[in-house]
């Protein structure tokens, strides 16, 4: 039995989280000749949000149309993400890296061009001013990126959950984790690291009651949001609660595919309603469509349906295929539910809430500047675990940018920091403790309790009273942590995930209290402050652990020249 066996690893650049952003960070650092270690809770070939596939990559391509320019893109980003996106960071991590990102995907072996025409096939949705979503078959994008990371000689630790970041004299020093199948412990020192562990899911109640039947990856549970916060890293955009619209019964993605191909939402009276809530209607921003859907259901005009009947047969076939790129099993589900291609009105429902970015053009997590650095020297962040990146296009482009930055930092660092042996021993004890309890609380009951609190109090609408009530209950739940037990290593992983979710829920509620306005409703809707207040809140709510352990918040304005 290997549980508790300790391995120590020193490396130049560590990437925590082997999803899209993390793998691109690893590629960048490895290409620069640094020693790279990727640590992933599952296996890099199929881990994270695009495990089974992905169908679209947002980009302006400057191919001649007036909407296809950098300026048009930036105007669109500022309109759907005002107050969430830091435009300077966005230009550095996405705009400047975008074409190299597309070339990299194609070079490693995934074609993004339509096999029939050899050109990009682009569709329009999500408030974009033109067809900016490149549709492609991304079923094998994840394993292809993983193969490239190995080909570049990166060391990969699969099935390792990182639970603690080590800091030495105010600088990043390393981290620890455990193998969720063998129980071996890993103590890593690195000159620089990129956090790329995604957003926080399983935090709210889900449509069929199963917390794993959700839109985003149920394995992304805020592990490094929590660990980074504990280590003094500043986070931003944590107040936002994201929702989408999904097929009834299966919280599968497909929003971009449905609306991009021209499908539209109707209510139970057969009315197209999206235009009531935004002039762009079904091609409008996601938040506006979801807000509209919530209002329609509240008014008694649900259920809601995705109407595909007016699509040509070939467009319907293309839609069906594209849905399968984004979620491999969705076409099977639709068939088994009795939908056929003709006469198709697919019943939809507003999805579960999740703690994630308020748009496709920013993130929610470790606050980064243009070079992807957090406030902790040596620690960088990429992808949905950062406050400025998220969604495939920025994860590929920005992940690479973060890897370059981390490599540059590591190159200039002469020595690794020491790590306190007592700190490591205490963490080993904390991590393994639930295995030693014969009786206690299951992770599932603990998580169910969190989900009832969050959904009742801020899922997604909230007031000062509801948020304070949530915090009171979540803080009281701290008392249950020492009862959590795990009968095996899989459950031990779930126990730590549950505790991370609860910690991040507190951060989300605290940040939401600080934002006394409404922005991108329903992603941040304050019933007590129902209007947007750009004068006081056009910018980030930044959270940080204060010296007494409390969650402190401050406001940092963002400016938009466009």
């Amino acid at each position, binding site marked *: 039995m290997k549980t508790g066996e300790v391995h120590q690893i020193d490396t130049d650049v560590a990437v925590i989280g082997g999803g899209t952003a993390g793998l691109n960070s690893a590629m960048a650092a490895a290409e620069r000749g640094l020693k790279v270690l990727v640590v992933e809770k*599952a*296996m890099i*070939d*199929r*881990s*994270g949000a695009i*495990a*089974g*596939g992905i169908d679209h990559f947002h980009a302006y391509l400057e191919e001649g149309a007036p909407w296809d320019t950098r300026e048009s893109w930036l105007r669109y980003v500022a309109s759907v993400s005002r107050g969430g996106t830091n435009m300077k960071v966005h230009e550095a991590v996405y705009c400047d890296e975008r074409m190299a990102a597309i070339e990299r995907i194609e070079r490693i072996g995934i074609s993004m061009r339509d096999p029939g025409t050899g050109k990009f096939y682009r569709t329009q949705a999500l408030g974009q001013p033109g067809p900016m979503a490149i549709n492609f078959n991304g*079923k*094998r994008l*994840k*394993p292809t990126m993983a193969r490239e990371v190995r080909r570049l000689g990166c060391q990969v630790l*699969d*099935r390792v959950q990182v639970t603690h970041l080590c800091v030495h004299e105010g600088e990043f020093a390393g981290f620890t984790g455990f193998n*969720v*199948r063998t129980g071996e412990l890993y103590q890593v020192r690195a000159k620089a690291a990129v956090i790329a562990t995604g957003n926080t899911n399983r935090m709210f109640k889900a*449509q*069929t*009651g*199963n917390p*794993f*039947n*959700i839109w985003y*990856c*149920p*394995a992304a549970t805020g592990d490094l949001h929590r660990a980074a916060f504990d280590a003094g890293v500043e986070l931003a955009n944590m107040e936002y609660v994201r929702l989408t619209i999904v097929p*009834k*019964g*299966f919280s*599968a993605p497909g929003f971009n595919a449905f609306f991009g191909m021209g499908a539209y939402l109707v209510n139970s009276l057969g009315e197209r309603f999206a235009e009531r809530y935004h002039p762009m209607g079904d091609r409008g921003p996601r938040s506006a469509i979801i807000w509209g859907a919530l209002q329609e259901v509240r008014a008694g005009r649900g259920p809601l349906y995705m109407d595909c009947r007016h699509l040509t047969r070939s467009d319907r076939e293309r839609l069906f295929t594209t849905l399968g790129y984004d*979620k*491999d*099993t969705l076409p*099977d*589900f639709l068939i*088994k*539910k009795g939908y056929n291609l003709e006469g198709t009105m697919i019943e939809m429902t507003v999805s579960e809430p999740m703690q994630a970015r308020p748009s496709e053009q920013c993130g929610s997590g470790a606050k980064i500047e243009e070079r992807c650095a957090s406030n902790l020297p040596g620690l960088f962040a990429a992808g949905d675990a950062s406050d400025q990146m998220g969604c495939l296009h920025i994860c590929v482009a920005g992940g690479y940018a973060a890897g370059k930055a981390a490599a540059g930092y590591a190159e200039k660092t002469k020595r690794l920091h020491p790590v306190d042996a007592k700190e490591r021993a205490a963490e080993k004890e904390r991590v393994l403790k639930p295995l030693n309890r014969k009786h206690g609380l299951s992770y599932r009951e603990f998580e169910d309790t969190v989900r009832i609190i969050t959904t009742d109090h801020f899922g997604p609408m909230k007031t000062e009273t509801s948020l304070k009530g949530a915090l009171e209950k979540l803080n009281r739940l701290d008392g249950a942590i020492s009862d959590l037990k795990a009968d095996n290593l*899989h459950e031990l*992983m779930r126990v730590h995930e549950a505790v991370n979710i609860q910690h991040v829920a507190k951060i989300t509620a605290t940040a939401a209290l600080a934002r006394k306005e409404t922005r991108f409703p329903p992603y941040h809707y304050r019933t007590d402050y129902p209007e947007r207040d750009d004068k006081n809140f056009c910018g980030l709510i930044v959270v940080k652990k204060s010296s007494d352990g409390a969650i402190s918040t401050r406001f940092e304005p963002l400016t938009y020249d466009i």
Partner: protein
Amino acid sequence: MPPVIDQEKCTACGVCGEICPLDVIHMEGKEMEVRYPDECWHCGACRQDCPVGAITIEFPWIMLGV
């Protein structure tokens, strides 16, 4: 239940258990077991990567019936 492994076709190569993003599939002795079916995300990676096509995906009543 979500991924159903046809044990006649399965060669216990272990790939499905290695790659599952939710740690649902494990090798139990000489067989692959869907040990945590309720934690399946229905991503389809196991079905895609099985070299002998031994995996089919089922949906429970609570997903199909609502």
